[in-house]
């Protein structure tokens, strides 16, 4: 495995971490301010709850604070390290809350009426229209609800790829799975989400 080449950003991050480990409180505050938004969004998209997202974000930072000494710059980017920690905490939270009862597995039977109107007309196509429904608050809510029904493996993959814009290598490092598996999960997650949205739309109408 090739070691990542230290970039200017990673060197700056390393300097901040070093200051933090040296007892500089402002460095820790800098870390929190830099990453809290991203961590909160991952947690929110994974749990679908603002309260849970807030609690989990705090838990993530407490865990980061406690284990900051163990971070090794040579082994990967700090963002990836934080993402891995967030992902592990989310999986733990998922197991504790037994959320898998409402998870709609990829193996679940697809809609019996395949000829029913699809969501294609209601989610943006390659050519987004000004009155696209996805821009509305209601559609956002529907997508978030559909996301909640994905299995945790697919959900975390699509969140990291489509919402956090992480590349496949970073996702593979964060999830500790091969890059091919990451791509496969992303494909399955996207198609499953589209099916869930179609089903939801049909139920609404």
């Amino acid at each position, binding site marked *: 495995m090739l070691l990542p080449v230290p970039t200017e950003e990673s060197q700056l991050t390393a300097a901040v971490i070093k200051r933090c480990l040296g*007892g500089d409180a402002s460095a820790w505050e800098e870390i929190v301010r830099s990453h809290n938004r991203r961590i909160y969004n991952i947690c929110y998209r994974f749990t679908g709850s603002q309260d849970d997202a807030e609690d989990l974000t705090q838990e993530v930072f407490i865990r980061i604070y406690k284990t900051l000494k163990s971070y090794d710059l040579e082994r990967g980017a700090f963002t990836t390290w934080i993402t891995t920690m967030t992902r592990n905490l989310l999986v733990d939270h998922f197991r504790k809350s037994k959320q898998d009862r409402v998870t709609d597995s990829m193996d679940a039977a697809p809609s019996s009426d395949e000829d029913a109107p699809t969501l294609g007309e209601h989610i943006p196509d390659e050519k987004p229209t000004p009155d696209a429904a996805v821009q509305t608050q209601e559609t956002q809510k529907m997508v978030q609800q559909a996301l909640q029904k994905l299995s945790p493996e697919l959900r975390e993959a699509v969140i990291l790829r489509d919402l956090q814009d992480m590349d496949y290598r970073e996702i593979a490092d964060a999830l500790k799975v091969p890059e091919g598996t990451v*791509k496969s999960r992303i494909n399955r997650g996207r198609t499953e989400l589209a099916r869930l*949205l179609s089903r939801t739309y049909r139920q609404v109408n």
Partner: protein
Amino acid sequence: MKHEGQNKGENGIQCVDFDARLADVLDGTVSGAELEAFKGHAAACDDCGPLFTQAQRGMLALKSLVEVEPPLNLVHNIIARTSAIDPAMALRMAQPKRSLFGRVREWSSPVLNPVVLVISQPRLAMTTAMAFFSLSLVLNLAGVKISDLRNVDLRPSAITTTASMQYHQTTAKVVKYYENIRFVYELESRMKELTKDATKSDDQNNDQKKNDQKQQQPDNTSQKPGSNNKDYSLGEGEEILAVLRFELPGITSAQIQNTGRNS
């Protein structure tokens, strides 16, 4: 996920390869002939075609989600919780980094502020100045230089050592000075004693001379009253045990007496 057409090979692409390249195609990293072959397979394959469409729609649905704003107090809450783990960090977090002088001044301000208010009054300004002057004088005499003080000198062990050295050095100076003074006093007292002895001898000589004159001249009425002085250094009834006769060689006492009369 069901993917029945895994072995199909429309347009030279297997369904397995289609699945592997799907993410890259949606990312826009595939182009040219490979992209054309991919799209041809999607159009021809009954399984891969819907898969491509759904994956594309799913991706767009996810991309449509906007970033949510975290709660305003999230950063504060995180810092508060981490501070609970490490109170020292909380203290440092609450207070910006200050210099040593600033920290000392802040620490001592409850005590020093009232004192400064009092001594800054005009009527006490001169007293304060004198006290400061006296203190600096004492420190100078004791050999203490403020500019030489370092942090390392403020350790309890260093303070004890310095105080002990100062005490012994000062004691040695005082003892030496006292010894010198005693030597001078002893020398002076010896000199006084010697001087006193010499004076006594002169008086006794004079008395002897007067007695001799009295024997030679019984009528002494012509003598001045003041010249008949007694030697009061001797008590009544004390007898002289020894007398020092001072005579120069070649000159008799009679000649000396004559010289004294002529003068």
